């Protein structure tokens, strides 16, 4: 099996794959990117916490026009994962309003984004409809 790296450093390719947030130790605000200090309380200490991999679609758009090189259409969404808002695409379902709905239950899923010159695969994430 090819060596794999995550598309972003907050995606952990364990079994099961999950997202990791940097949580402010003072106010518990969560960030996926590296922060110099907390934008909410200005504290500068963070700990890594796993984000729940199931959630609910709080908002979405179906993008039909994007920059050259970006495959369309795709569904961009905000998913509420037990109180932590996550940005991600809705995948493994058709990109149309009949298949993607506000409030729909979804779960984290990964897929191979591409392969580099040394054969390493980059693995990205999205959210797929949860079978209920």
């Amino acid at each position, binding site marked *: 099996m090819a060596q794999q790296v995550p598309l972003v450093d907050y995606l952990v390719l364990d079994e099961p794959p999950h997202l990791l947030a940097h949580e402010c130790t003072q106010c518990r605000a969560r960030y996926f990117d*590296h922060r110099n200090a907390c934008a909410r309380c200005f504290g500068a200490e963070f700990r890594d916490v796993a984000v729940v991999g199931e959630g609910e679609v709080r908002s979405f758009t179906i993008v039909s026009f994007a920059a050259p090189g*970006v495959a369309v259409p795709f569904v*961009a969404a905000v998913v509420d994962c037990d109180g932590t808002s996550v940005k991600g695409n809705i995948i493994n379902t058709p990109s149309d309003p009949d298949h993607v709905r506000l409030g729909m239950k979804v779960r984290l899923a990964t897929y191979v984004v591409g392969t580099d010159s040394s054969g390493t695969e980059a693995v990205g994430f999205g959210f797929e409809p949860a079978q209920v």
Partner: protein
Amino acid sequence: MTDDVWILGITMTKFGKYPDRDIVDLAAEAARGAIADAGIGMSDIGVLAAGNYMGGDGLLGPGRLGQALQKQIGQTGVPVYNVMNACATGATALRTVLMAIKAGETDIGLAVGAEKLSGAGLLGSGGAGKADGAEFTPSGRVGQVAPLDGRIGTETMPGVFAQVGMEYTHRYGKGGFELFARISEKNHAHSTLNPLAAYTKRLTLDQIMNDVMVAYPNTRPMCSANCDGASAAVLVSGERLKRMDPDQRRRAVKISASVLTSDPWTEACQVLPDINTLTRNAAEQAYTAAGVAPEDLDLVELHDCFATAELVHYDNLMLCEPGGAVDLFESGATWRDGRLPVNVSGGLQSKGHPIAATGIANVWEVCHHLRGEAGDRQIDGARVGLAHVIGLGSACGVHILERAA
């Protein structure tokens, strides 16, 4: 009254395509127009704030309009502030001049915003970036090994603002594609009365809903139009205005509130910009400063960069009860013959959105009605109006304007 700052002269160019004129040409037309409208001369201007976001022909780069403009209309040596604040650039230029006057540095100042955007395409989209080939190397604040636009959400403006509107729809369980399209139908209908709008064609609901989908639920006519244009305003202190001619005093418009806010932290703002909280904060501050309540407003020009944005700003600007934006629109209140007309200019969807010109153009529209000079689209008896802009990132400008007594 003497502590107040007033708009003495204000103008906008027609928004549209100007292939044969550069940004400085457009800025010069607006600036000289505002100075003439104010009944003063270039030598009276004590400060200049010039807004431009994208740069382009006639400029050495983005945010360098001020001195280039002086070369064309008058190098008087006064302080120049080149300002950039995303789509709030024009409102920021206006407020910069207002602050200089309030600080007592000068009595009269000029704010200008100019932009050339025709054919600019999708804004906010960073592009796909480097292709596959080299080895994956993490970079940036999320250690990404490849471009994220389209892989983890969207960076395009139509997509971001689509999600803003859909979030509101989800939170209150009302609205959706057709409602957003009907908001666009209203603004395109309003535009038919505005000779300075880039597009003045009335569109049916079917035409809007069946046009090219850009980012569901925003079709092409539901997106602000990229175009060229400029706007400018001359501001004066109340003290100085008192000594001016009766006609200047009669046409002057009081700036009852000028507020600029940025986005405070909210839970989800790291994944979807929160354009709501800073707008609500700006509105609250503006109503307090002006001693005006939302129900006192005779017209509102708000930042309908997308049809989905107009809906949430009804709520953010407190034109309705929290959660009541859909009901407000359904009541017909925001049509030009309704209780609280919104975007009688046609809004950004039809008037156009040359970024740095937009903030002052919204103020111009309101002033035009307060002065009773809006012709066919005049809102009769307008005394108080509100102009709102938002720049993603985010910056929000709110101005409340009142007719001279």
